[in-house]
């Protein structure tokens, strides 16, 4: 093994740039670390080079521990995104720099320099200053400079990032050739999937400091182990299904499982991945046993470069949770995407609106782990309530529970620890994979930190009621709701089960994610959902008769009804028993009124825009509802993660 990372972690403040990353790269391999911005990929590279010190873990290069060695002693070549060529040195001097430092004698130096210049196709340009070279040429000089003193490994940080698309493709090819010719172990960091697929022997996918999956490009694309990778790499149709005896059932369709899929006894809930190119569009006749997904209608059709992209409406999949393509608010029917080659005659001739049969050429299944709920407790009297309700939600959603005990002050430590042992005592039987964690420090900070470390679907916090002059739900809940992308459930009192859910549309940002997320919860637990809209007080005064109100107001009412109808349709498509309700009056009061009269188990709302939290001098709607209705409130941020 040329490069080994063993449980390497790096923290920036309370944020984990890398969280226990372990990785092995073999001799001569070209390994690509792929991830979005802030995923920690550059940090990983800098740690290997010794430019950044890790907080924890070991690094081995060629079998030697290098954790304590400075970058000078590690023998790595590093290519920076901005190349960092020494501007006052000629190309030749730049390439020779490392060899001079390593006291390579002049004859060898010149020989090597010429060899490298030849390799990168810049013969005879030794005496030119870097500023006179094009971006692509500078990039190649940077590579040659990093390779000149024969480092044991080559590290490249977004090496093609600053180049235009055409140059990038050319350079990528020549880079691959150089790497293979010299057989130098290489780690390349990029956010560009195409680049990763083009170059890599293996790809490692980083997400917020976690190495999610490692594997050859094809395997990662075809057989991802996680939903993250399935949706991160390329386009995907991802639906919920059940595996049973070598078959997978999606709605009414029964498809044959590929032989490499996990074989299970009994039935198991899974996420079914169907790549768009594996979703074949066929004429109406031509059902194939075990391959037919059902009838659909072409809704959109457009040329995307060399392929034909089709959106197909699938009424037969109504009620099947579809994770990708993400359902849009108020869409009329479940929609899947299919890619085809434009030349394949039949598809090309099909018009938008024509009815087609969808065949699944290939599919892959990912075991469904269920939602992971983070229950936050401090060991006070609230904790029991939180644990009880957390268990209700987790078991009804077939999910998992992680209990986080936080002690803000040293004297709260015992209490918090007792709370955790209570959790184990009460629920370890019901949830065999129940996890408990203990942290000290500011509660909001620790909770946000935990959200960084693991993928959670929901956070559960206790609500103590208003205390002191506070006009809000409490600083911890407030901060978490503002900063987290994960929905937050705030609990004044526990409920025995989840049967009725109230979804409030009058509050919060204009996003539809609240309806969609609450709908998913309702679908999972089999609860009925009520979609509530409260129209403003003045409108109520105008009376209920449309004839009394002016045209504008009438139009507004139409819009609201339209929104509600679309919402209910969205929920029904997800398989939720949904109804709508309109109330007139002030939103906070009307929501409480509805909540009390309907005896709901959960009230879902969109997260308010930050300015609405404070500064108005009024109590926030959320606080008011918590205080008056004493029912659990679920606050959904504008963009929340998808969860089945």
């Amino acid at each position, binding site marked *: 093994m040329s490069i080994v990372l063993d449980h390497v972690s790096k923290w920036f403040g309370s944020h984990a740039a890398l969280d226990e990353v372990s990785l092995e790269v073999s001799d001569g391999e070209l390994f690509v670390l792929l991830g979005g911005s802030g995923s920690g990929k550059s940090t990983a590279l800098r740690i290997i080079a*010794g430019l950044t010190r890790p907080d924890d873990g070991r690094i081995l290069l060629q079998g030697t521990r290098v954790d304590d060695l400075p*970058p000078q002693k590690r*023998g790595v070549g590093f290519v920076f995104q901005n190349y*960092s060529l*020494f501007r*006052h040195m000629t190309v030749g001097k730049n390439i020779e720099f490392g060899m001079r*430092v390593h006291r390579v004698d002049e004859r060898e130096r010149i020989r090597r320099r010429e060899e490298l210049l030849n390799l990168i196709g810049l013969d005879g340009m030794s005496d030119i200053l870097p500023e006179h070279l094009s971006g692509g040429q500078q990039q190649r000089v940077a590579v040659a*400079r*990093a390779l000149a003193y024969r480092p044991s490994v080559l590290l490249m940080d977004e090496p093609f990032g600053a180049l235009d698309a055409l140059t990038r493709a050319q350079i990528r090819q020549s880079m691959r050739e150089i790497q293979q010719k010299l057989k130098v172990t290489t780690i390349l960091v990029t956010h560009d999937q195409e680049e990763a697929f083009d170059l890599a022997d293996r790809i490692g996918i980083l997400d917020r400091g976690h190495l999610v999956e490692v594997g050859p490009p094809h395997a990662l694309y075809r057989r991802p182990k996680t939903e993250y990778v399935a949706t991160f790499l390329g386009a995907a149709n991802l639906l919920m299904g059940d595996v049973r005896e070598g078959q997978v059932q999606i709605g009414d369709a029964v498809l044959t499982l590929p032989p490499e899929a996990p074989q299970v006894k009994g039935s198991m809930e899974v996420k079914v991945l169907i790549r768009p190119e594996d979703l074949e569009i066929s004429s109406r006749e031509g059902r194939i046993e075990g391959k037919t997904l059902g009838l659909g209608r072409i809704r959109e059709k457009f040329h995307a470069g060399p392929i034909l992209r089709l959106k197909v409406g699938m009424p037969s999949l109504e009620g099947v949770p579809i994770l990708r393509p993400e359902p849009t608010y108020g869409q009329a029917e479940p929609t899947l995407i299919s890619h085809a080659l434009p030349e394949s005659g039949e598809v090309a001739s099909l018009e938008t609106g024509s009815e087609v049969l969808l065949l699944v050429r290939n599919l892959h299944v990912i075991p469904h782990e269920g939602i992971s709920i983070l229950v936050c407790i401090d060991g006070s009297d609230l904790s029991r309530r939180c644990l009880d309700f957390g268990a209700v939600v987790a078991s009804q959603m077939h999910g998992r529970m992680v209990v986080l005990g936080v002690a803000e002050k040293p004297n709260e430590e015992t209490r918090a620890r007792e709370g955790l042992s209570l959790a184990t005592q009460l629920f370890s039987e019901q949830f065999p994979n129940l996890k408990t964690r203990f942290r000290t420090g500011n509660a909001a900070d620790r909770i946000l930190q935990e959200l960084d470390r693991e993928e959670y679907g929901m956070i559960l916090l206790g609500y103590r009621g208003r205390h002191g002059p506070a006009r809000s739900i409490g600083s911890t809940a407030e901060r978490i709701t503002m900063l987290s992308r994960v929905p937050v459930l705030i609990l004044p009192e526990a409920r025995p089960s989840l049967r009725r859910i109230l979804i409030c549309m009058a509050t919060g940002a204009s996003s539809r994610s609240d309806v969609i997320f609450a709908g998913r919860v309702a679908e999972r637990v089999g609860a009925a959902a009520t979609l509530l809209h409260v129209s403003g007080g003045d409108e109520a005064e105008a009376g209920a008769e449309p004839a009394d109100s002016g045209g504008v107001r009438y139009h507004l009412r139409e819009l609201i009804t339209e929104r509600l109808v679309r919402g209910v349709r969205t929920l029904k498509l997800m398989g939720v028993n949904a109804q709508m309700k309109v109330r007139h009056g002030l939103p906070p009061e009307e929501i409480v009124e509805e909540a009390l009269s309907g005896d709901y188990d959960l009230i879902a709302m969109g997260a308010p825009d930050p300015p609405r939290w404070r500064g108005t001098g009024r109590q926030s709607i959320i606080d008011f509802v918590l205080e008056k209705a004493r029912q659990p409130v679920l606050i959904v941020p504008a963009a929340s993660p998808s969860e089945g």
Partner: protein
Amino acid sequence: MTGERSPAAGRRKTLTHRITIGVLWAILTPLLILPLVAIFVFAGRGGWSSFWRTISLPDAQFALRLSLWIALWTSVANAAIGTFSAYVLSKHRFRGRGPLTILVNLPVAIPTVVMGTSLLLLWGPIGLLGRYLVPLGFRPMFAPFGIFLAHLLVTFPYMLGAVKPVLDELEITYEEAAYTMGAGRARTFFYVILPALKGGIFSGTLLTFAHSLGEFGATAMVSGNLRMKTQTAPLFIFAQFEAGQIEIANAVAAVLAVLSFTIFVFLLRFTRNPAREGA
């Protein structure tokens, strides 16, 4: 804009253009140009021979030579200390970095006389340190070394201001590239960073030299203005003027003006970035 333009538009353009330029000249002539001309007119009044005679007076000779020496040493010392400070302030993160950055730039904002006074209050016979050091024979004030100290203090921001922006623009990866290739800190500094700072250091040094040559306020405070001992050229000019020896004052002033002018021509021609004042 390279297309055909109607002659009328062209004429209008030329007219406004001419007026603008004319106004600029009208403002600058009495403000900047005439005063400079005046020096040479007065200096040259008695002809070349009288100019040379005045210049060759031992007092004048000494003052000019002292000024040049002080300027030279100040520049050299400042190049080293200023570059080092700029490097540390730019590349290292440490407690007190912010306040320190403001502090080192203060001499630009504070009147030089005050800076001179502060030196006196530190090193002078009754100063904070001076009261212990002077009896031991360390007597920097009222000596050329004191002038050097004062000039260093006053010109420090100019060096910093010329070098630090260049360093700030130099990405951290620039030196990291050298480290990964095996170069140590010293090697990286002298072979990789310093060459990139050449322009900044050069213009900083010239600025320092020019400022030191003309420094008056702080020098007047710390030098004691002792004839043939600590009298720099600007002090000499002032003293002669006060004594009514206007011709002598003018001759030395003309020499100083020519020197400064030459330095600035250098500065403008040989530095890519125009000189920046203050950091």
